[in-house]
């Protein structure tokens, strides 16, 4: 794991002191509310529906057990005993008091963590593949590059007051688990014809009210050019991005309005200038960062215990089949702990659960945990012989739900229960869907299916890239849920298409049930996923299931 240098340590301490001063200056009137707002935002502090919310960065999703324990401590001491893991590898505390926030930041600094640039119109926490450094398909661990970008973007003097927020994601694998095409900048590791590794640079992707697939601005960027190239893109955006309308201020609109060619020309021109300003020290620093992300010192041990348990215990087998994937090392597995218990709030964990996960990581996962953008926690390096013990402890901690990637592994934004922007509730809908399919006992039969729910048009629940997306809107004071179909956030990226008129809060769960039962009838065999069936058959048979009355009407008319 990356260890803070003296420089990092001093920077974070200084930043906490600055924020403490800013809170005092807000109270004494030196700062107006307007002036204070971006300053608190760039330190992760939002004003939500009921109270302040503090969003803490988990850089590139990697945590040590010590850090996870500190997150539990903060939840217990300054919040209501739980935290909420988000779709951008952050954790949010929903009930802090303004005066406590500097102390919370200080407690984070004690374990080399911070809340810097988790909000505001600035470069946000860089996200990455939650399986980085463990995944079987990986070209190279992307996290040293993510750490380099973290340092470069932190307090960047040009980019603290951008037209709008700016999100960067990076993946080192051809299978995209970081949704790079839905980010302001997406970096996908690639090889050129000479066999060298570099980055494919994607720009102008995003979800929100105007979903757009990112476009390739540079096919192959040598790794040494990463920082000046990023600096060129963001500086072009800073001058060109619209500031007259916040709904048109993201770089996706800048690219859309100016055209990819114009943006590419401007970026390449600026890149030449910016490149010359880098002496190469950044590459030396990168070389120093890389050893902080070593391969684990693998245990050499038999895996018989695993095989025995797998054959004997159907509950364990179900959890292994659903919640673990292949590791680079054949004796190891990557285990995902679901924070999506049927009926619970997606992404929430209590302080006791956080401590238990920290203990498991310390005992069985080389002291490492990951936060996934799907709001689950990952034990990235587990020797298979330890899986039965881990599973037993997860059962005791109420964390053994075997549903990763299934219908109840739903991404949902906080919705109207917490968020000031939301126009509909999303958590209760997620809970009802999960409970319904648990009752039907069809979850494993249905197989891989991503449902994503947003409580407003800003799309924090990523509904555009859900195989089934649900968007909650307010229609004349009544909640109304629209369904999109066929979205995909991976390397086969697609934005979901709207199926038709929306459903009321009492109709939405039955509609989803009709849709999924129709899929079970339509699929060729149990290997054909919902998304594959949708791509083969098109939207019509699914729409027919959603709107049976409309279908009847059409037949009568014919």
């Amino acid at each position: 794991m990356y260890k803070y240098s003296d420089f990092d340590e001093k920077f974070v301490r200084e930043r906490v002191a600055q924020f403490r001063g800013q809170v005092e200056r807000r109270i004494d009137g030196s700062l107006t509310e307007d002036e204070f707002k971006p300053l608190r935002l760039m330190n992760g502090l939002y004003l939500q529906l009921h109270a302040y919310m503090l969003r803490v960065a988990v850089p590139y999703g990697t945590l040590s057990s010590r850090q996870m324990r500190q997150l539990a401590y903060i939840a217990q001491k300054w919040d209501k005993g739980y935290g909420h893991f988000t779709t951008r590898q952050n954790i949010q505390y929903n009930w802090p008091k303004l005066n406590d926030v500097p102390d919370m930041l200080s407690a984070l600094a004690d374990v080399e963590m911070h809340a810097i640039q988790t909000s505001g119109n600035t470069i946000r926490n860089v996200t990455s593949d939650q399986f980085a450094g463990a995944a079987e398909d990986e070209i190279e661990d992307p996290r040293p590059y993510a750490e380099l970008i973290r340092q470069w973007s932190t307090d960047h003097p040009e980019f603290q007051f951008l037209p709008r927020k700016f999100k960067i994601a990076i993946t080192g694998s051809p299978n995209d688990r970081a949704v790079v095409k839905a980010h302001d900048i997406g970096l996908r590791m690639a090889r050129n014809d000479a066999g060298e590794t570099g980055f494919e640079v994607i720009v102008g992707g995003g979800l929100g009210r105007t979903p757009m697939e990112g476009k390739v601005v540079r096919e192959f960027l040598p790794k040494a050019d990463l920082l000046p190239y990023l600096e060129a893109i963001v500086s072009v955006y800073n001058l060109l991005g619209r500031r007259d309308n916040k709904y048109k201020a993201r770089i996706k609109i800048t690219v859309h309005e100016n055209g990819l060619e114009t943006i590419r020309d401007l970026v390449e021109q600026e890149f030449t200038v910016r490149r010359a300003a880098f002496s190469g020290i950044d590459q030396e620093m990168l070389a120093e960062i890389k050893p902080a992300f070593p391969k684990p010192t693998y245990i050499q041990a038999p895996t018989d215990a695993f095989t025995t348990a797998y054959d004997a215990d159907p509950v364990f087998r179900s959890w292994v089949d659903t919640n673990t994937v292949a590791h680079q090392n054949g004796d190891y597995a990557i285990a995902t702990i679901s924070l999506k218990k049927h009926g619970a709030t997606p992404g929430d964990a209590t302080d006791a659960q956080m401590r238990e996960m920290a203990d498991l990581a310390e005992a069985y996962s080389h002291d490492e945990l990951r936060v996934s953008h799907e709001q689950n926690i990952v034990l990235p390096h587990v020797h298979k012989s330890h899986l039965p013990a881990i599973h037993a402890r997860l059962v005791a901690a109420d964390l053994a739900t075997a549903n990763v990637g299934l219908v109840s592994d739903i991404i949902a934004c906080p919705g109207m229960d917490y968020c000031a922007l939301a126009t509909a509730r999303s958590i209760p809908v997620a809970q009802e869907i999960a409970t319904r399919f648990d009752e039907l006992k069809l979850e494993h039969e249905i197989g891989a299916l991503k449902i994503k729910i947003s409580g407003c048009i800003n799309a924090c629940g990523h509904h555009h890239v859900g195989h089934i997306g649900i968007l909650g809107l307010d229609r004349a004071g009544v909640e109304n849920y629209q369904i999109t179909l066929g979205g995909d956030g991976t390397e086969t990226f697609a934005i979901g298409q709207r199926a038709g008129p929306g459903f009321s809060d009492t109709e939405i769960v039955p509609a989803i049930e009709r849709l999924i039962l129709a899929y079970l009838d339509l699929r060729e065999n149990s290997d054909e996923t919902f998304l594959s069936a949708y791509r083969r058959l098109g939207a019509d048979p699914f729409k027919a299931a959603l709107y049976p009355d409309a279908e009847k009407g059409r037949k009568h008319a014919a």
Partner: protein
Amino acid sequence: MQPDPFTASVADRVTDLNERYLNHAAQAVLKRALTDDTVGRIAMVSSFGAESVVLLHMLSVINPATPILFIDTQMLFEETLTYQQEVAAHLGLTDVRTIRATREAVAAHDPDGLLHKSSTDACCDLRKTVPLENALSNFDAWITGRKRFQGKTRATLDFFENEGDTRIKINPLAHWTPDDVQDYIINNRLPRHPLVAKGYPSIGCAPCTSRVAPGEDPRSGRWRDQDKEECGIHFINGKVVRGPILKEEPMNIIVTDQGFGQDDWTLAYTTPDELADNSDAPALAIDLASDADPAVLAGKLDGIDMIRIDFPSFADGRGFTLARRLRLMGFNGRLRAKGHVIADQYAMARRSGFEEVEITPELAERQPWDQWKARATWQDHDYQNRLRGAV
């Protein structure tokens, strides 16, 4: 107990209303104003200007039959008259009353329509204030779109005001910011006045309204180059305010690593457009707007001694990239950030390539030197400089 609407004085009713609606939102204030017995007969006065559509829309949702008084000074832009018709139709407003000065009054005081050239106050009086006063005599209360941010004279505006002990004046948008107005227009997809896109953020009569440059105060286009802020319909402390209000032009403060100081730069600034004409000047100083393209100065930087980049708002970070680009283009002269830059941004300004910041005395008073000094050690903790290294 609420004051009796028929016997209580206007002052008592206003005090009571302000207390009751202290923490309410604009829509709530408007809704209650239209239904509260203690308010009485009510009309909205609208110029159908740049921001009027917000209140008109709120009103149309609550009661589109509310009387709306539109003052046609007969000096308005053609676009305003067309826009008035469009908005009324779009929102379904059923009682828009056009108010004009009487033909006799115009013939007597401004027969050739040039009164505004000799006295804007007299012109406003004739065409706006008197006709409105007459029209309002049938009402107990009127609604306006005035907001606190619009100027010093409006900075302490309340939702309800006592107007000369005769009428209640209601300002539902008193606490709104420019962003609130824009968000409301965008979110409700309301039609915009066509002149806004042409550079008129505040629209009055054609002879006395001019374009406003980006970054200027939106109301600076009204009665430009005159010491006039209000047309006379508006009252300060219950009295009509007339004539020039003297404005002081206090000196700005220059912030450097050493502290606050006086401006030692005495030569005039030119814009990039004027640069070619001034090539013989002894020391060239350029004022650069925040939306400028730094490329316009390519090849000319050697002859320039000072570039001053405007910060219309501290939230507008373009100036930081402009400064960095000018430095990367090879500019070695003085680089100054001017406008709304706050102490917390001082290190960013210095790291981006600025040498100094020019701020107003008001800001200097609110954020004294010790708050800037806290960020004057800008070389410390600088990730970017560390990553770039010396070239």
